């Protein structure tokens, strides 16, 4: 497949999907290697950034998703007045940062760091889809493990967990 065609097909696929699509699934539909699709996607991301396109491509871990460019938010607000600009409370964001840097992690482990009960903020984060259950820990009582989701990456404008800023302690290492 010619590279230009791969680009166009990726665009069409992401448009229909709406949500984040695995690069591997796209690659198998196009009968191309993951490496190829991944590098074509990188170029598309770059080009759209450069052109300040209205529709951007986000890389979320090993997935791709279309999104509007924030620069045009004022016009979109004017036309649709969408109400998707929720923010997170301080308690919840503390809990979330502990999960983000230590996932997967149990409620008990989070509470040990925060020194308070986290039932409430965990519930709020689950309800917003920012975290999800990610199995059970192989210890006594098999407590539930929590991890961040694609929505978490989107909400904070990250393409990957590796993009989280380094913790103070890690910088000193």
């Amino acid at each position, binding site marked *: 497949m010619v590279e230009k065609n791969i680009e166009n097909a990726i665009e069409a696929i992401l*448009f*229909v*999907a*709406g*949500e984040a699509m695995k690069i591997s699934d796209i690659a198998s539909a196009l009968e191309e290697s*993951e*490496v190829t699709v*991944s*590098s074509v996607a990188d170029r598309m991301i770059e080009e759209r950034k450069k052109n300040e396109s209205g529709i951007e491509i*986000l890389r979320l*871990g*090993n997935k791709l*998703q*279309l*999104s*509007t*460019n*924030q620069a045009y*938010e004022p016009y979109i607000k004017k036309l649709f007045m*969408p109400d*998707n*600009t929720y923010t*997170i409370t*301080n*308690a919840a*964001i*503390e809990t*979330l*940062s*502990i999960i983000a*840097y230590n*996932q997967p992690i149990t409620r008990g482990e989070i509470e*040990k*760091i*925060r*020194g*308070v*009960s986290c039932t409430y903020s965990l519930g709020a984060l*689950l309800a917003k*889809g920012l*975290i*999800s*259950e*990610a199995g059970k820990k192989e210890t006594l009582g098999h407590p539930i493990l929590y*991890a*961040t*989701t*694609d*929505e978490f990456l*989107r*909400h*904070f*404008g*990250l393409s990957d*967990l*590796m993009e989280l*800023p380094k*913790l*103070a*302690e890690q910088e000193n290492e």
Partner: protein
Amino acid sequence: MDNYQFKLDQFEGPLDLLLHLIKKSKINIEDIFVSEITEQYLAYMEELDELDMDRASDFLTMAATLVYIKSRTLVPKPVDDDELEEDPEQELIERLKAYKIFKEASQGMKTMEETARGRHFKLPQEYPFELDNFSIEGATVDKLYAAFNRIMQRVTEHEENPYRQIDFAPEVVSVRQRRQDILDMLKEKGTISFDMLFEGVASRLMMAVTFLALLELLHIGKIKATQKENTDVIIISRK
């Protein structure tokens, strides 16, 4: 203490309150037990008139810990069993330090949230597209009723598990296991890119394990790594 109306809600927990006191007194975390922090903390506790028991219990437990640690400095220590016992003072200092790191990280995340705001996404398209060809000849009320129930069923299932999950590699994996994983991946795909090996790897430990496994495989000559240009992707293949 200042004429300052203390509210429990202002703090995310006893550690948060302690950090606040430490910051206000301009001391290092290590120095909390040679300072007035314990007294200040207890004074805050006395100011509480309406106790929200659920929240206050964490604060009161901490007060007890602080008093206990303070009292230990007043009585002579038993000579022997000191070594075995975990030092509660040191433990609290470590907890405060760890908490401080995440408190700062969460402030950084607030900024990230602010910058990321204002993106919009779209719903999946309805598929198949060619709705012009659709026909409801023969569609009955029963069919309509069944369709609605089917959707409700789907909505219920969705609500039970509404969170999309990220696939996580198991946390603790040995270098040997990871070496096998890499060989298995190569068997299945022929070649893989260096970056693909680290996709979805969330912890630093796991990354280090993956990297070590890769180095070992290169060292024993089971795989080779090639790169066309300096900045190009590194391709891993079997030897």
